[in-house]
């Protein structure tokens, strides 16, 4: 199985960049909500980098 990062969901936009889709949330609650939606849509798993950034990865 190929693992890949599908998107990042962040409340700190300055911490993320590069070639993946980036979703910017206003606060933690919105971030959780967007992350859950995207996880369901893409069948991916949300991982918390503990710096205000979530990444969505396919396993």
């Amino acid at each position: 199985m190929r693992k890949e990062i599908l998107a990042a969901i962040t409340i700190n936009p300055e911490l993320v960049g590069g070639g993946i889709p980036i979703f910017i949330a206003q606060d933690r609650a919105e971030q959780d909500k967007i992350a859950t939606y995207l996880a369901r849509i893409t069948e991916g798993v949300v991982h918390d980098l503990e710096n205000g950034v979530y990444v969505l990865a396919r396993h």
Partner: protein
Amino acid sequence: MDYITPTAAGVALGTLARYIMLRSDYRQYPTYPHGAVTHLSLGFIGAALGAVAIPALLEKDFAAISFLSLAATQFRDVREMERSMLSSIEHSELVPRGPDYIEGIARVFEARNYLVIIIALLVSGFTAYTNIGVGILVSIIALFFANKLMKGKVVGQIAKVREGEVRFEGPQLFVDDIHFMNLGTEETRQTVLSRGLGVIIEPLDDNARATLANSGQRQAIAHEASAQVGVYRDVDTAEFMPISRRDLDTGRIGLIILPIEKDIECLIEAVKRTPVLESAMAKPLKSKTGRGASD
């Protein structure tokens, strides 16, 4: 000499043996009526091939014997058939079996046909030389040994299985002290905490440690466990997939699963009864180097 009785006895008892072996294992996969018919028919063909071998030899009909070699080709196809069938339905399983387990199951199906040939051969041989009573007795003994020898080990025989505590440190998921993965979103973590069950599998020796390290073996355990206690997930919730991780220091295996039935006793039992895969079985202690390294 009358060959009808030995041949008929061989075919009948061989087919019966296939039927008994078909039922003896609930794990392989649900033997739907059509699957059962397929395997009984192949068992019948195998039994017929085995049953005519001895009478053919007695008649010095060596051409008939060579047909046994055809059987080998025929039954290799059984393995291929099972492999492709299980592989093709693999992607619709919520918790896949994994290629190693499929290979193991396919091999068992193939081997059982050879067992049927051997049993039919023994029965017809003994019946031809003595009488049908001895033939029946031989078939019972042969079936007993076939079942005993082919049983293989289960995880419960090579490892101690006990409950482990599911906990989080921030987003990091642990069972006891074995790290599993990083899980985002508070909701997911709460679900895992409230529904998840953790199991620790402690290998009894170095052989078991090497066997349990095989990821195919661990996938088989996850599949068996979730098949029996259910799994709280759907295709779009990858985070609730049962996973196993290895403690690199001790070789212990941790398994986390979100069952439908939150019953730790049943889960431990399901893990214990998972077959040890032939392809995963490792025996480092059999070699001098392996023994030397273990102390």
